[in-house]
């Protein structure tokens, strides 16, 4: 096997859905690699298959043809190397913040260590005071932080985020984007974030993957070589934004 530092390697990926017996091609030959420590954003109009792509990586959906390699190995069932964050926090409403995170840590981990991990990640997302609160007592943004802590607590090498801030208001969203960058710097987890917000994609990522639809393909990959933290009103930022916008308008 060739030694690479690619965490994720997607090769000629196809996915078809059948709706009332009619074949619908959702992904038509997607190729994408993600390097260790990178943040890659995937943008595209709804229906371009960007969420399906993440579902295929986590095996929530099955591949029609093609290959997904996670840290060099083909995916075959949900991998401990990758965690997924959904648009909704998807916490268990009957469990406290602490219990929600504990829930996903394998039972083979000793109790003392489990507790330490939970504490660490709750602190990382800034919710130490709310350890014993239940999800319904938290705001949407706080719930999503718990969901991030939960995802990180399994120590994945790859974090997949499916429109993670899409359900939050604009101010909370900006705040969460900054938080995510801070967490990324501290934890250094590779991230793939699906979004329909171009600003968000540029603000967060090293590369922006632009997808086209019918069928879903990677149209272009735009590198974002700007230092963090990024200024949304900076001219270089706006130029990249313009380039990506043009990709959409051209189609």
């Amino acid at each position, binding site marked *: 096997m060739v030694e690479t530092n690619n965490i994720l390697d997607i090769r000629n990926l196809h996915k078809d859905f059948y709706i009332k017996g009619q074949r619908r091609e959702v992904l038509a030959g997607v190729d994408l690699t993600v390097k260790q420590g990178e943040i890659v954003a995937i943008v595209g109009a709804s229906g371009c298959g960007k969420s399906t792509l993440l579902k295929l990586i*986590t095996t*929530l959906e099955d591949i029609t043809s093609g290959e997904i390699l996670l840290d060099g190995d083909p995916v075959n*069932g*949900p991998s*401990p190397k990758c*965690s*997924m964050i*959904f648009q*909704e926090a*998807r916490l*268990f*409403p*009957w469990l406290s913040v602490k219990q929600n995170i504990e*829930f*996903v840590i*394998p039972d083979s981990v000793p109790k003392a260590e489990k507790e330490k991990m939970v504490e660490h990640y709750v602190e990382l997302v800034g919710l130490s005071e709310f350890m014993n*609160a*239940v*999800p*319904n*007592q938290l705001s949407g943004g706080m719930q999503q932080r718990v969901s991030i802590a939960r995802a990180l607590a*399994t120590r994945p090498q790859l974090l997949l985020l499916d429109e993670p801030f899409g359900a939050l208001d604009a101010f909370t969203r900006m705040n969460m984007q900054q938080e995510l960058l801070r967490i990324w710097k501290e934890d250094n987890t590779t991230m793939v974030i699906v979004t329909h917000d171009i600003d968000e994609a540029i603000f967060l990522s090293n590369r922006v993957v632009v997808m086209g639809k019918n069928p879903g393909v990677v149209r272009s990959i735009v590198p974002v070589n700007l230092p963090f933290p990024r200024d949304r009103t900076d001219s270089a930022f706006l130029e990249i934004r313009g380039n990506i916008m043009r990709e959409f308008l051209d189609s």
Partner: protein
Amino acid sequence: MFDLQKKNNLKQKRIRIIIAICFPILVLLFWQYASTVGLIKASLVPAPLNIVKTFLSHLESGKLWKNLSVSFVRVACGYFIGAVAGVLVGFLMGLFKSVNAALNGIVSVLRPIPTIALVPIVILLAGIGFSSKVIIIAIGSFWPVLLNTIHGIQTVDNKLIEVAYTYRINKLKTTFKIIVPSAIPAILTGLRLGMSSAWMSVVAAEMIASSTGIGYLITLSRETANARVMYMCVLVIGVIGLFIDKGLTRLERYYLMKTRGIADVK
């Protein structure tokens, strides 16, 4: 009729409370009046005050309590059996598609049968003793518990199951730590409705074959043509049923509030 509901419309709320209190009082006053002046026959519809008098005298003599306590014991036993069976069968039917396929037909046929229609069959099989009453009550409380348990399990949020899948949570843990807790609000609703149903069934069971209990008291009053006792018993049953339902609703809400910080009790 269906005006836009605005928040904090205290005036509207206050008017409704006044109506809610005044209208029943007016009905009672009219009833009392109609019965005393002979607009309706007191032997058929006794006046409210006379019913209250009968209630007090039965309370004093201990006759009411004696019969009620017998009914309570029957309800407790029957409900316990019906509820446990309802939850167990509900889990099996909700969790295992094969069990559901096997039992669904039988359930659909048996469920619409009114409990009272089963009384003769139960008596035939179990005699007219304590056990036949318990069986009838158990059947009465079984259905709501069963149906709500199945519903609770089948409507578990698939999004949470997806979370369990991506985190490689095994089937056993998914079942007992996600599906079961998800179903708890529905099960609690079932247990509450089952209790109401048990209380309604006891009267049916006792009216046909019994020498004690609140239902028997009604039968006895019919035989002695004592309308006052009849009305008194019916009202006592209604009020107790109301208290049971309100009490359990509160308990349900309290529990959900305490454990999940939110209570949506239906």
